């Protein structure tokens, strides 16, 4: 931290002493064991997703009907499903879908939400009123119901599920950014930026947005967790990924009639959803502790 005496004990400049807020957050995060576990889980699933073609012992979409619903064995570690397909391979490829949907849905809502939030918070007046009312109205619907309705309009498919999830989460981020803007607008350093004659647009991009990043990142990470569950829920209702895509929620839903006969077809996809979501939640929690200035004293 700061040194004792400026005038009399000059300290040498070393890199060690320059601690940017992000570095500081990273340090805190590194000390958080649970967050590390979360990162471990996510890194694992990301690797699985990337290396799916190498890792998966069988194709995910072709099976042998004669081998349907086989219990876990040496050849099929997670058993086979109703079409005789290898559950492990499907779970592995499913990681791609879930991570893809979770990440991109959240990126979509973050981008749109942030833009709307910035506009709404900074320009105020009718822009704010309009955007805020739209958010209010969207938030007045239970989100899954809204997602179902959107997918019903667009037709069931993975892309549309992604879109629906992105749309329903826009108000969350929009409101977050808006409230950050509103409070940052009153902060003295923003006032100071105006005092030196800075333009509004520059203030928005250089001062307000970077200082809103921390909560956006935290909420975004937790949002990925939610988005994965939402995508799986839509898949479960038949409104998300379509056969033979190995989306975990869809796998659960397709296999649930065999739950007694072939529980492995239901257990493994479910566990995968839970673990991935858990991973993101752990990271999100860790990030919140690391980034949220309130916890920092």
């Amino acid at each position, binding site marked *: 931290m700061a040194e004792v005496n400026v005038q009399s004990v000059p300290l040498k400049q070393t890199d060690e002493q320059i601690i940017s807020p992000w570095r500081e957050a990273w340090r805190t995060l590194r000390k958080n064991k649970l967050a590390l576990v979360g990162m471990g889980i996510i890194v694992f699933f990301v690797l699985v997703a990337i290396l799916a073609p190498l890792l998966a012992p069988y194709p995910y*979409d*072709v*099976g042998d*009907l*004669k081998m*349907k619903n086989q219990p876990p064995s040496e050849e099929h570690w997670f058993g086979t499903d*109703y*079409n*005789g397909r290898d559950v492990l391979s499907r779970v592995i490829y499913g990681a791609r879908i879930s991570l893809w949907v979770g990440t991109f849905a959240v990126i979509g809502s973050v981008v749109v939400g942030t833009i709307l939030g910035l506009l709404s918070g900074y320009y105020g007046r009718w822009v704010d009123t309009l955007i805020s009312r739209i958010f209010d109205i969207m938030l007045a619907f239970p989100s899954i119901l809204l997602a179902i309705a959107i997918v*019903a309009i667009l*037709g*069931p498919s993975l892309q549309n599920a992604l879109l629906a999830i992105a749309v329903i989460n826009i108000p969350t981020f929009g409101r977050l950014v808006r409230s950050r803007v509103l409070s940052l607008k009153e902060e003295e350093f923003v006032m100071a930026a105006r005092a030196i004659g800075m333009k509004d647009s520059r203030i928005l991009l250089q001062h307000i947005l970077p200082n809103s990043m921390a909560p956006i990142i935290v909420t975004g990470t937790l949002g990925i967790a939610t988005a994965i569950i939402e995508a799986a829920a839509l898949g479960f209702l*038949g409104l998300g990924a*379509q*056969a*033979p895509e190995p989306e975990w929620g869809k796998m659960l839903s*397709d296999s*649930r*009639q*065999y*739950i*007694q*006969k072939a529980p492995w077809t239901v257990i493994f996809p479910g566990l995968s959803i839970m673990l991935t979501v858990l991973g993101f939640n752990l990271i999100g929690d860790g990030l919140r502790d690391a980034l949220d200035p309130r916890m920092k004293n």
Partner: protein
Amino acid sequence: PPTEPAKTEQPAQTPAPAPEPAKEGPKQLIVGRGGDSVGLDPIRETDGESFKVTENIYDTLVGYEEESTKVVPSLAEKWEVSPDGLTYTFTLRKGVKFHDGTDFNAEAVKWNFERWMDKSNPFHNQDGYYYYNDMFGGYKGDANHVIKSVEAVDPGTVKFTLNYPLAPFIQNLGMSPFAIASPTAVQAAGADGFTEKPVGTGPFKFKEWKRNDTITLEKNPDYWNAGYPKVDTLVFKAIPENTARLTALINGEIDLMDGLNPDDAEDVKANSELQLILRPSMNIGYIGFNVEKEPFNNQKVREAISHAINKPEIIEAFFAGLGQPAVNPMPPTLWGHNDSIKDREFNLDKAKQLLAEAGFPNGFKTQFWAMPVPRPYMPDGVKIAEAIQQDLKKIGVETEIVTMEWATYLEKTRIGEQTMFMLGWTGDNGDPDNFLATLLDKNNIDGNNNTRWANEEASQLMMKAKQASTQSEREQLYKQVQEIIFKDVPMVPLAHSTPALAARANVVDYKPHPKGSESLEKVDIK
């Protein structure tokens, strides 16, 4: 039909203790099913779940024999047809009363038919009556309307005069929607209200309806068929999940269920507390081609695909053997089925070769529309589609499985948006016309001919068959039609499934009817 082990007799010997030992006192029969009824005014309804209930509350003038579509007396004890086929005189059963205590008589029959046929009748439904319209050529005043008049000759006799002869007239009268309702009750409840307060002459009286949950019926002690019904209370319980329904059955929460997963049939057989019951099949599940669209306008492509579908394996895997491979678009149990047609074998090489001949040596990409909901003729559309997809891949045909909401699916396949698709049909009255013409007559394009196959020759033959007077003549014509269909392959008939049901072992005398619904008056609990 697969032989059943003598499970049905077993319970008599082994006193299998049910979780809830048969109590002295009122007998309950709880029937689990996939969905709730839409309404209980049968003439308005079109869905099987409604008829399953209404058949227990109402009777029709004539009925069908157990497990077949042969007509037998019901509210009418006998009938006479005039030689010109234009006059039908029914002698009604005497002493029959509606549940509300009013008499069943010729006036009541006349009142019901007038309600149905006359759009200006105050109790006619504004949306019309689908089955009436369909079976009797429209409503009063319409060009093709069949029924000219209904006369109550005396309380026990009712006379129908037709505008023109209609061979299946009697057959039609046995259909579930044409059940006789109590005129007093309809008048009291109003045309809309009656659907929730049904009153008929049937074995059970309506008691309570908890929507999406249960419909409770009570024994009609004055039922005309003496000795029936056997149980005191009949409950229909909606449990949407097949697995959950089976669990409920195993746990003794229900006594009888339909929509058993074919896969679970073995388990049911193996469970001494349960019995497996099979419904005689009268359906067809098929893979259709939109013959108006590339590349399915090419007969060779269609034929190639029909060689690439492994029917036996699919039936084994998804019908759990409870079904038979279909060759023609109508079940073999119906008269007129062409048994001499031999099915194309599963042969990927041949398929490939045909594709090459058609100009697709490397295959092609296409959509494959799969049914989103289980139907009796197709227990799990998407899974079957996935299985077919795997095989088609081997001949270079890459398919993208498309599903959508059932209603959308029906609508879009009807207007021809689909390419290759999956659908099916359950017969209504056991007439070949109800299958062949419905599914493949060119006049039914935009209707139920979803392949949009317009074959002049076949259509003319079918028209001829409708008007032909003898059954053997009709039979001949229909067989010819089937040959044309087989050759041109507008569809690949996949299977005639045998819908599976399960019951607790102590349920006896349950005889499921091929048309999908039946009265449960004879069912008893031992």
